[in-house]
């Protein structure tokens, strides 16, 4: 089981002086601590115009800073929006390769197509086209990373023969992922041989069904590259405290606040009817996980959510592990509802009490001195 932290950079509005700077500084501090504690990934989303929910429009810059301030943790685009109005595929390849070099081969390259009208409308993207452009991007990106110059004539872009530079350090290229919001996208991932980066709520049963189908389908895939990434990770919240009740009180503030901000997004399908956006999926409590269906938790924490005492969180993660999940990425804060000092304490407690339950036989060591020194 791999563990990551996931940045949305959600920020309370109206903006007060310095709040965005504080959100970014806090995130970088969390990344440094996560690195020292032995977490595996830092992911940063790409969102545009999403007031409160996400002020993270330039993840390549965030991840470059993370890479420069950390040593081992892998840095992940979670994910690059693969529509040409937002990102030209050549620029995606150039930036990714550069980040892979600077991070010493630590890049994970997530791909996405955006789910909100706020973003697609802002860039005048036709929602009917985004599945098509995403597909073209993921098929052409491995070729742009290749050693030889490439001439390409496609649907959403064309180029005469050119050599896209630099080349990534990881060969043939950084691992590819797709963010999975709508049910069914995991099958798109499987069919193309790319990793499944879950970013929406699903309970155990639903996630188990999707994961099983992903693993079945990927055996038959027509991969977009010479390498297949068959990992499945999910998104979760994290607030860990020795006292389960305090954990729930604080953690559910995070779950509720972030879920509310998520529910307030203007989803594409709400504004623009299209077959290309079949379903709505979000992180709002009750949208995919039911607190009422989790009799094991007396404090109203929904099924599978990593809010609780170390023991409760171990139980939840073991369940995720048992249904085939390879990695869990955690949202640590939302709209800064949890003071940074508590976020960092939660991370430390998780690393001390929870991680060891899943790290038998692994070689990556946590250095307690560094873990303590990063933020104190």
């Amino acid at each position, binding site marked *: 089981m791999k563990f990551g932290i996931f940045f949305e950079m959600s920020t*309370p509005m109206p903006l007060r002086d310095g709040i965005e700077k504080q959100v970014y500084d806090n995130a970088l501090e969390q990344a440094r601590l996560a690195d020292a504690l032995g977490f595996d990934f830092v992911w940063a989303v790409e969102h545009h*115009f999403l007031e409160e929910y996400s002020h993270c429009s330039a993840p390549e810059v965030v991840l470059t800073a993370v890479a420069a301030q950390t040593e081992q943790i892998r840095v992940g685009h979670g994910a690059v929006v693969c529509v040409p109005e937002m990102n030209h595929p050549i620029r995606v390849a150039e930036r990714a390769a550069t980040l892979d070099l600077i991070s010493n081969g630590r890049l994970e390259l997530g791909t996405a197509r955006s789910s909100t009208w706020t973003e697609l*409308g802002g860039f005048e993207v036709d929602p009917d086209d985004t599945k098509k452009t995403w597909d073209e991007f993921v098929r052409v990106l491995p070729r742009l990373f290749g050693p030889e110059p490439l001439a390409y004539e496609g649907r959403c872009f064309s180029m005469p023969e050119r050599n896209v530079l630099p080349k990534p350090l990881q060969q043939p290229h950084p691992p590819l992922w797709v963010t999975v919001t709508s049910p069914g996208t995991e099958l798109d991932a499987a069919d193309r041989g790319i990793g499944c980066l879950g970013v929406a709520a699903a309970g155990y049963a639903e996630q188990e069904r999707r994961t099983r189908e992903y693993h079945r389908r990927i055996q038959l895939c027509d991969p977009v590259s010479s390498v297949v990434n068959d990992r499945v990770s999910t998104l979760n919240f994290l607030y860990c405290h020795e006292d389960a009740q305090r954990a729930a009180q604080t953690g559910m503030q995070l779950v509720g606040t972030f879920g*509310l901000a998520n529910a307030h997004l*203007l989803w594409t399908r709400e504004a623009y*009817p*299209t*077959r290309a956006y079949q379903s709505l999926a979000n992180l709002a409590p009750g949208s995919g996980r039911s607190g009422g269906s989790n009799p094991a938790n007396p404090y109203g924490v929904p099924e599978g959510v990593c809010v609780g005492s170390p023991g409760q969180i171990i139980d939840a993660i073991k369940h995720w592990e048992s249904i085939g999940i390879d990695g869990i990425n955690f949202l640590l804060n939302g709209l800064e509802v949890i003071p940074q000092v508590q976020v960092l304490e939660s991370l430390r407690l998780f690393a001390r009490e929870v991680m060891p339950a899943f790290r038998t036989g692994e070689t990556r060591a946590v250095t307690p001195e560094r873990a303590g020194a990063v933020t104190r």
Partner: protein
Amino acid sequence: MILGSADPEELGCTRPTVASLPRQSFVLDDVVLLQAFYEMPRTAREPVLPPGLHPTNPAALVLQVWRCGDSPWGPFALAQARVQCRSGLRARGFVTGAVCEGSDATRALRDELGFPVRDGRVELQRGYDRVLATVEVDDRPVFELEGEDPDPLSPGDLQYSSTLTLAHLPAGLRLVQIEPQVTLERAERVRPRLLGFDPSALGEPRLEPTTPVSGSVATGRIEIPPVRFVCRPAELAFTGTEKVEG
């Protein structure tokens, strides 16, 4: 979080009084439903909504025109302006104003469901190349909405948000949550074109449709079940929601 900033009492000045909410469903058959979704300027984002509601980003205005062939109130046609919003976690359309052709329907929608509706002329003509809605009050145009180039969709591709009206109930001024169940037989996406628009005739002079986002036209059946919940307009849904005793 971002909230509406309108004074509920001020909004309530022009809203109807509902003596008692209906305990039965209303079934509307043979319905043609035209919807247009427009962005609005940010200046009209918070001031048009009461503090219990969250605006969308960007602010959005939805125009809906229903032509109903059969209903408990006979045939009627309704045009409504709705500001897209969130009540708690849920997507809703807050009705600012409406025009109805069919006096029994006008009365029922106003007196039983709290629609800020008045009598007028509402026409909806459907062709293979376009759909045209014309709305007038006192012989003055309110809006003309054209949907061009119908493009077939699966009925499941269309999504309508539930409705919130603001009305004076015996318990006080409340947001009334109306949850029409729409069963569609046919659905098409159209390109909306708005020809003339009088926001004052739709209850809110600050409504300003700018960027057209989408349009759709559909046929089917609408069932309006009994109202289950109302909400105090100055409070968030989490604390302000009240169950309607059936």
